């Protein structure tokens, strides 16, 4: 036993013992532990295997920067891969397992790769696995993939909920350490609305890890902040992304720490969107590892983490410790270890002398200080057993038997959010780290995040930053309170030691632990020409593991700069990309799941369709009845029955989804003239006209029937899917190109319900429901509209037809829609009225050769291609007209709309079938494709519409559709299968 729990101290709650399992073994911990601290208390330091070599790895850090301790948490539908043990709060019943180890963490067969590790250098896979070529897909790649990945995904859907909050804040403070708390307090006292977020369960940051704490100040500050109505404290909340114009995203973990005890109905995690007037970044700093042989052995830990474990969690990771530090901070850990009863064998300090207060204290306690020395190697298998210490600049190494090596290579401010905000970093030559430089957003950094590592300086900066942020947010005139008294020790300057000299040849010296990138990998990459830091990262994968290089990036950069003979700032830094720590997919999706993925739009008649057993089709966001199967009918049978009924008697369609736009104003007619290919100025009041609109490149954009309600008032209909786009299109032209035109547009799609009944009996039904209306050819001609009363409801009745049958489209205010439908059904019962869906409607309109925008057209089709010259005005100009004259658009052999009749009448061509003249040709030349194809119960055969190159010149010819397995012959005919002209067949 080496890791152990202290009998007293720490911030854990010894009255609340918790049990948990790791790798199948049962352990105990306390409330307030992280999984990592509880494992250390149980001396379970071996927690994982590395990505490439499967080397045994131990807990290395105490926070978000942890590279090694990745866990598969839980089992079943709630299992979670790659959780960092250092950030997992312990709960009763927690189960955890190591990732990337098989058959077990102790005996991992993957470690055999270590035997061939001489081959597995950076980028080795680019240089091999190429012979024989066929082996790559069949042998090599599958093998590589089997080795890949860390944890495993759940196999079932996630049972948990997630949600989102959108808020504004005067001041957002990222980080609840001393600087962040000071900033929040100062800003809040000035009167600003403050939001302070910290990734940990408890606010306090580094104060929680130190022995000489400002416990009283921390308690009082938190109490004051909690009592202020203008302050929101968000523990367990990580500010992970900093976007344009002070838009920040935060992830709050609401129930993860409760485990199975999490209450039902509470979201597991919540994603905060915050727009802040001012931001204070107080995100602290990460300690850097030192690079020497075997620096990844379990038992080698960051010095600051060792102190955190001792002081915050009352666990000591080892009994015989060596500290290896380039700065005075490591001495604090030595003192902490000594106070916790561990034996501190030596502090190894490469600096020639240690002049600060902390070394003096260590010296006074009899701790041996080896100045001018370095640890060149650490050894041990699944646990550190000794380190080799040598004098810098040569000399024999001496071994020191130990079970813990605390290392500190200095500190890197957490500048991730600053960098994401587009701020420019500056290299601080004295502190050997990147610090925030040029600021580009309304933001300031404070404390360790700003390179001010000493507590007193951090507090002072925090108060100042908070007060300034409040002032800039409009809350000036308040003087920030004085920071509390802090007696910071005097510190000597740190030393930059990016790679320990004399460590070469003693074993692998890791820079990126999780991705197994060594110092020699980095040098190899530089040698091979990967001199840009981005190249280095991509070639070696350094910094690309789940910790995103929090401990490795600066070391890697420094080693590259050394290898290429450039300074560190000249070498550059990689881009810090959001998120700061990984973000759960579920939280990003929030509540936009299931039916809330996209709004569902239904008509007022929808409940009737559902009750009737309709099968629905998605058209844009709308649910439209596709067909209404009866008594076990399949779709074909239902569509046949429905389409037949319309031609022989009476059918009824819910057309409420059609887009409807109210167009009003003195220039309305002129406006429509410019929009539509045909003219509307001369349209009489009460008359309807079908219109086609084009984009300015001449391609068909939408179609529909527009009715003149008054001289200055039109009622436009659009396709169901095109309604929004058409309205936007019209508004754009009105507002930006023709602002002088007096035209006002209003979407009325949802204000009107539309019941369309068609067939030889349609007139009878209308007469019955609207006795006052004259329904004869003369008083109510085709393509006209009457206002009246239908079934006792105020209505607009349009005599228009998309089926070729006598047909009336009755519009009533939406809330009357269902009543109208029911009245039509009742009146039509004696005629055998048949509700029909979109599929039957498509068959009927295709029989007439009527197009559907988006089916006969695909953005490359002009009105002339469709043979709709009759609707293209020669006199007036309109949007798109000029484009018809372009060389390609005016070609005679463009694809043109034709009808097709398969040689075998029983054949129904698949929509999307390609058409050729010669199926034997090679390469085969495609001259068109089938756009619509159906079985027609009215024609008693299959038929189709198609676009064919120069098709209008080929009526009567046979064209071929080569399908998988057979080729279908079809005769080209005019695209109208019923009669000549535009008149309906009946009545």
């Amino acid at each position, binding site marked *: 036993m080496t890791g152990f729990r202290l009998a007293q101290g720490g911030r854990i709650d010894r009255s609340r013992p918790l049990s948990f399992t790791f790798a199948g073994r049962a352990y105990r911990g306390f409330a307030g532990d992280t999984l990592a601290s509880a494992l250390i208390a149980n001396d379970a330091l071996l927690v994982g295997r590395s990505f490439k070599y499967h080397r045994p790895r131990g807990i290395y850090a105490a926070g978000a920067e942890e590279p090694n301790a990745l866990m598969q948490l839980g089992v079943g539908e709630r299992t979670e891969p790659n959780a960092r043990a250092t950030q997992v709060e312990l709960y009763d019943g927690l189960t955890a397992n190591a990732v990337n180890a098989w058959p077990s963490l102790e005996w991992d067969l993957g470690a055999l790769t270590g035997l061939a590790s001489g081959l597995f250098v950076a980028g080795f896979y*680019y240089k091999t696995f190429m012979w024989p070529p066929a082996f790559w897909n069949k042998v090599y790649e599958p093998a590589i993939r089997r080795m890949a990945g860390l944890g495993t995904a759940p196999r079932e859907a*996630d049972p948990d909920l997630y949600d989102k909050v959108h808020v504004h804040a005067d001041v957002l403070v990222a980080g609840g350490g001393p600087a962040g708390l000071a900033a929040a307090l100062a800003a809040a006292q000035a009167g600003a609305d403050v939001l302070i977020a910290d990734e940990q369960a408890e606010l306090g940051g580094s104060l929680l890890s130190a022995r000489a704490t400002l416990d009283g100040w921390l308690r009082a500050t938190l109490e004051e902040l909690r009592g202020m109505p203008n302050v929101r404290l968000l523990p367990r909340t990580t500010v992970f992304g900093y976007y344009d114009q002070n838009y920040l995203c935060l992830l709050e973990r609401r129930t993860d720490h409760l485990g199975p005890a999490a209450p039902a109905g509470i979201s597991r995690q919540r994603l905060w969107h915050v727009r802040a007037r001012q931001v204070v970044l107080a995100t602290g700093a990460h300690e850097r590892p030192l690079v020497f042989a075997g620096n990844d052995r379990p038992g080698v830990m960051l010095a600051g983490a060792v102190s955190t474990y001792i002081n915050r969690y009352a666990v000591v990771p080892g009994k015989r410790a060596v500290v290896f530090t380039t700065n005075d901070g490591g001495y604090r850990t030595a003192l902490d270890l000594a106070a916790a009863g561990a034996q501190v064998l030596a502090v190894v300090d490469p600096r020639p002398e240690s002049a600060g207060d902390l070394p003096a204290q260590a010296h006074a306690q009899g701790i041996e200080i080896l100045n001018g020395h370095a640890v060149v190697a650490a050894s041990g298998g699944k646990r550190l057993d000794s380190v080799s210490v040598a004098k810098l600049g040569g000399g024999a190494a001496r071994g020191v038997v130990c079970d813990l090596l605390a290392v500190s290579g200095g500190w890197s401010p957490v500048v991730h959010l600053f960098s994401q905000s587009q701020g420019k970093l500056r290299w601080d030559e004295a502190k050997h780290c990147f610090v925030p430089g040029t600021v580009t957003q309304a933001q300031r950094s404070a404390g360790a995040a700003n390179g001010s590592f000493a507590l007193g300086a951090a507090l002072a900066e925090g108060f100042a930053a908070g007060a300034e942020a409040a002032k800039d947010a409009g809350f000036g005139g308040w003087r920030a309170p004085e920071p509390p008294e802090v007696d910071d020790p005097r510190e000597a300057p740190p030393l930059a030691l990016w790679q320990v000299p004399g460590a070469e040849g003693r074993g692998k010296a890791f820079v990126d632990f999780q991705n197994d990138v060594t110092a020699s990998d980095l040098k190899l990459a530089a040698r091979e020409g990967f001199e840009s830091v981005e190249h280095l990262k991509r070639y070696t994968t350094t910094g690309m593991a789940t910790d*995103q290089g929090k401990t490795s990036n600066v070391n890697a950069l420094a080693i590259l700069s050394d290898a290429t003979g450039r300074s560190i700032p000249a070498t550059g830094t990689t881009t810090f990309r959001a998120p700061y720590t990984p973000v759960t997919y579920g939280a990003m999706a929030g509540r936009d799941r299931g039916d809330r993925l996209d709004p569902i739009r239904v008509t007022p008649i929808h409940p009737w369709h559902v009750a009737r057993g309709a099968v629905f089709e998605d058209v844009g966001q709308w649910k439209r009845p596709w067909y209404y199967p009866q008594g076990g009918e399949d779709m074909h049978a239902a569509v046949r029955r429905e389409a037949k009924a319309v031609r022989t008697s009476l059918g009824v369609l819910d057309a409420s989804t059609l887009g409807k736009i109210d167009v009003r104003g003195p220039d309305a007619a002129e406006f429509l003239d410019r929009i539509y290919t045909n003219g509307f100025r001369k349209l009489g009041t009460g008359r309807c006209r079908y219109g086609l609109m084009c984009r300015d490149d*001449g391609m068909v954009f939408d179609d529909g029937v527009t009715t003149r309600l008054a001289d200055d008032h039109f009622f436009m209909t659009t396709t169901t899917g095109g309604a929004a786009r058409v309205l936007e299109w019209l508004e754009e032209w009105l507002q930006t190109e023709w602002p002088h035109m007096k035209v006002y547009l209003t979407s009325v799609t949802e204000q009107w319900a539309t019941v369309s009944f068609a067939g030889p009996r349609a007139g009878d039904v209308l007469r019955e429901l609207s006795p006052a209306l004259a329904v004869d050819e003369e008083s109510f001609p085709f393509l006209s509209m009457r206002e009246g009363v239908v079934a006792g409801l105020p209505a607009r009745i349009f005599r228009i037809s998309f089926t070729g049958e006598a047909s009336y489209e009755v519009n009533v205010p939406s809330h009357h829609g269902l009543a109208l439908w029911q009245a039509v059904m009742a009146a039509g019962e004696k005629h055998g009225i048949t509700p029909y869906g979109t599929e039957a409607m498509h068959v009927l309109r295709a029989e007439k050769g009527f197009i559907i925008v988006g089916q006969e057209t695909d953005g490359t089709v002009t009105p002339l291609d469709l043979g709709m010259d009759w609707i293209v005005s020669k006199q007036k100009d309109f949007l798109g007209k000029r484009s018809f004259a372009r060389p390609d658009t005016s070609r005679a052999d463009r694809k043109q709309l034709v009808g097709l009749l398969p040689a075998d009448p029983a054949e129904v061509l698949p929509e999307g079938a390609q058409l050729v003249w010669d199926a034997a040709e090679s390469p085969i030349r495609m001259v068109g494709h089938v756009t619509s194809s159906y079985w027609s119960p009215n024609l008693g055969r299959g038929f189709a519409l198609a676009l064919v190159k120069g098709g209008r010149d080929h009526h009567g010819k046979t064209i071929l559709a080569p399908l998988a397995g057979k080729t279908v012959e079809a005769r080209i005919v005019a695209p109208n299968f019923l009669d000549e002209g535009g008149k309906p067949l009946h009545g």
Partner: protein
Amino acid sequence: MQRFSIVSLARNALTGHKDWPRYWRSPKPKAEYDAVIVGGGGHGLATAYYLAKEHGVTNIAVLEKGWLGGGNTGRNTTIVRSNYLWDESAHLYEHSLKLFEGLSQELNYNVMLSQRGVLNLAHNLGDVREGIRRVNANRLNGVDAEWLGPAQVQEFCPIVSISPSMRYPVMGATLQRRAGVARHDAVAWGFARGADALGVDIIQNCEVTGFDIREGRVRGLRTNQGDIATGKVGIVAAGHNSVLCEMAGVRLPIQSHPLQALVSEPIKPVHPCVVMSNAVHVYVSQSDKGELVMGAGIDSFNSYAQRGSFPVIEHQMAAVLELFPIFSRLRMLRTWGGIVDVCPDASPIIGRLPVEGLYLNGGWGTGGFKATPGSGHVFAHTIAREAPHPLAAPFAFERFTSGALIDEHGAAAVAH
């Protein structure tokens, strides 16, 4: 050029890998070249490689403003496929896919082409119609393509939900089995190494600051590393084509937008192929390393910032989780953005510009990576012969005047 193989790897292992040569030299620019390629991404490097290899034009330079492959080559979601609708596109992308299939051997560099199959899902009747039309056209164009029903989709990719109660249920999919993913950086590095070995000067950190154009002809260009004389300039600078062409006095039909992508933390293999869905803005695959690689939609506004808005990603994630409910507890590890140059018809421009000696290969929108070798191959031909390669001819700049656009909006992964 040092041959790469398991043998050379083993031999170098014995000497501690101290003797590997540089992949490419780092020369200073010469005063004059026969041709200069502006842009050291995959397309530019491929152009240089094929100019040297197939046309013997070796006195050439590739100028890269930053680092090789640092633009969209290193920022895409690595999907390789050729199942485009129109003949012109299908032929071009199929040419590219065929080159991809032999690329590791051609370059002696493993570009890790993983032909795991690409599914393009259909979620409504319009999608189904478009998919079947594309499958039929692909087959006749010699591009492998199949139409799968929902059950077959799930058989091919068991983790896809085909529940009929989804907001937009899966109604089928096109499948191209030869399609898949490749290692994007390796494509750039492999072409760079190959081009360098053939004598091409690859010059990084070299920014073009202007052109020397006299009497309507390119005479050279100005860079931050000095002036270079040349009679032929090929601009292949995705994300900066408009800026460069403006320096040469040419206005393009291109708009530059941010396109974001993201990866998850690595997980054990769970996703066997590539799934794309145009209707709900999803494309997702799993990398050799275990990360789920996803692309999001493009941001609507013009930008050169290589960053987009978070709601774009959130919107896409909701759609991903509908299709892959088991991904909900996984985590997004890293996001990034590229700059996509989008043409009005979602097809590229390959060919001459209205300045003699000036050529453009750009406007690939969201789909350029898959075309890398083919694009370089036909562009090299176009520059060397001063006449368009037959596969490149339809993609000429002049099509915007004639109206002969190649409208691939239906086939692009992202609805524009």
